[in-house]
C-alpha cells in the first residue's frame, strides 16, 4: 500500500496544485483547484465531461498556465518556468493524450523514438531496441513501420503509452485512457497502467470518467466539480462517500441533472 501521508503534509507532495484558477474567455474552468500528489501513487481524477479534467492535467506539465495559483513539481514552480526550461523538466514526464495524438506523418517507430532523439545521443541500435522493448511492454510487436492511420483505436492508445514511457519518466499523465474503447480493451489498458506503474515505480495521474477503471487502478480518487476538487480519498472512501454530488457521479445517476434541465 502506497503511503499517502503527503495528502495531509503539503511539503511532502511530489506535485502540488495550489489554488489554481483558469478561465477561457468568459468560461471559468478552474476555480481554486487544490491537491497534492504523492510520489509513487496513482491518483485518479474523475468528473463529468467538460468540467476541466484535461485542463487541470495540462497545468501539471505546463501546457497551460494558471491565471492564479501555482503548480509545483519537485521544488520546481512549473507555472513560473519559461517554455525553454520546461523542455528539460518535461523529460521527467510522459503524457498520454485522449486520442493518442500520434504524429500522423511519422511511423510508429518514429513516434515512440521521438523523445529519445530529442533528449539523448543514443545510437540508432539502442533507440531501436528501446522502441521494441516499450512496444512489447504495451503488448505490440512488429508494428514499428506502420503509420498511425493503419492502427485501431486501442493500438493507437497503446503506441501513445509506449511513446510516453520511452524515456522512463517519473510521472505519467493519462488523459481518459479507456474512453471510447470496448470493455475488454479498457481492461487491457487498465492492466497496462498497473504494469507500467509497478515496473518503473512511477507516479501516475489518470483522468477518467470510467469508475470501473478508477477503482481498479487508483491509489486515491479525486473528484473535480465546478472547478474545485470536492473530495479526495481511497477507492473505498469514495465508494462510501456521503457527498451527494460524488455519490451521484459514481453511481451514474441523472436525477438532479434532469431536474436542472427541466427547470
Amino acid at each position, binding site marked *: 500500500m502506497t503511503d499517502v501521508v503527503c495528502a495531509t503534509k503539503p511539503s511532502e507532495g511530489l506535485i502540488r496544485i495550489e489554488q489554481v484558477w483558469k478561465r477561457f474567455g468568459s468560461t471559468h474552468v478552474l476555480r481554486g483547484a487544490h491537491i497534492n500528489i504523492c510520489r509513487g501513487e496513482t491518483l485518479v481524477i474523475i468528473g463529468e465531461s467538460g468540467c476541466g479534467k484535461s485542463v487541470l492535467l495540462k497545468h501539471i506539465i505546463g501546457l497551460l498556465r494558471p491565471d492564479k495559483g501555482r503548480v509545483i513539481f519537485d521544488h520546481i514552480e512549473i507555472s513560473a518556468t519559461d517554455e525553454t526550461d520546461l*523542455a528539460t523538466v518535461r523529460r521527467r514526464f510522459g503524457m498520454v493524450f485522449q486520442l493518442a495524438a500520434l504524429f*500522423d506523418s511519422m511511423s510508429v517507430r518514429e513516434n515512440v523514438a521521438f523523445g529519445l532523439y530529442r533528449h539523448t545521443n543514443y545510437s540508432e541500435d539502442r533507440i531501436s531496441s528501446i522502441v521494441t522493448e516499450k512496444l512489447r511492454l504495451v503488448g505490440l510487436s512488429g508494428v514499428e513501420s506502420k503509420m498511425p492511420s493503419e492502427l485501431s483505436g486501442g493500438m493507437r492508445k497503446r503506441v501513445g503509452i509506449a511513446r510516453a514511457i520511452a524515456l522512463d519518466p517519473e510521472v505519467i499523465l493519462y488523459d481518459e485512457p479507456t474512453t471510447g474503447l470496448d470493455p475488454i480493451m479498457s481492461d487491457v489498458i487498465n492492466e497496462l497502467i498497473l504494469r507500467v506503474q509497478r515496473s518503473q515505480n512511477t507516479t501516475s495521474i489518470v483522468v477518467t470518467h470510467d469508475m470501473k477503471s478508477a477503482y481498479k487502478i487508483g491509489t486515491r480518487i479525486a473528484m473535480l466539480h465546478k472547478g474545485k476538487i470536492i473530495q479526495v480519498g481511497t477507492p473505498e472512501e469514495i465508494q462510501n462517500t456521503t457527498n451527494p454530488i460524488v455519490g451521484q457521479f459514481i453511481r451514474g445517476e441523472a436525477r438532479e441533472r434532469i431536474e436542472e434541465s427541466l427547470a
Partner: protein
Amino acid sequence: MNLWLTRLLRNAITAVTSLGSFARFVISTVDGVRAEPPQRRVIVPLMVEIGLKSVGVVLATGAFVGMVLAVQIYNQLHKMGAESTAGPIINLSIVSELGPVLAAIILAGRVGGAMAAELGTMKVTEQIDALRTLGADPVTYLVTPRFLSCLLLVPILTLYSDAIGVVGGYVMSVKFYAISEHYYWEQTRRFLEMWDVFVGIAKSLFFGGAIGLICCYKGFQAGQGAEGVGRATTNAFVAAFITILVSNFFMSLFFNTLYRVLHS
C-alpha cells in the same frame, strides 16, 4: 454611443494583441533558423510537397496569364495602331506584376491552405501539445522548415510561371495575332530590364515568406474540432490573399520610386 465606443476600444485592443502574438510568432520562426536548423529528413519531403507538386498548377496559371495578357493588350493597342509595342508591355506585366501576384495567390491556395489544414489538424488532435511534452518547440519544429521552404520555392515557382507566361504571350502575339516576331523581341529587349526581373523576384520572396508565416499561424490558431480546422484554412487563405494584394501595391509603389531615384 458608449456601447459603440466600448466595442471599438475592445476591437482595437484585440487587433493590437493579435498583432503582437503574430509578431512573436514571426520572431520565433526566424529565430528557429539559428536555434535549430531544420534537418534534411524534415525539409526534403516538405520541399517535394510544396515545390514539385505545385509545378503543374503554377505552369498552367502562368501560361494562361501570358495568353490573356496578349489578347487584352493586343486588342487595346491595335485600336491605336501600336501593336508593335505589345512585347514589352506584356512581358513587363508578366515579370514584375501579374506573374508574381498570380503565382503567389495560386500557391497560397494550394500550399498555404494545405499547411493551415495540416497544422490545424495537429492542433485540434493535440499533436502540437504532444510535441511540447516531448521537448520540441512546435514553432521551430513545424513552422521554421515550412517558412524556409516557401521562402525558397515560391520565387523559383514564380520564375517557372514567368517563363511559361512569356512563351504564352509570345505564341498569342506572334503566332495568333501575327505581330512581327522581330519587333516583339527587339522592343522587349529595349524596355525590359534586369531591374524588372529583380523586382518580380523580390516580390515573390516576400510573398513566399508571407504565405508560410500567415498560413502556419492561422493553422496554429485553429479552434476545436473539424469545424475549427475548416475555419482556420479559410482564414489562412483570405489573410494570405489580402496580404499579397495589398503588399504588392506598396511594393510596386516602392520599387518604382526607388527606380526613379536611382536613375535621376
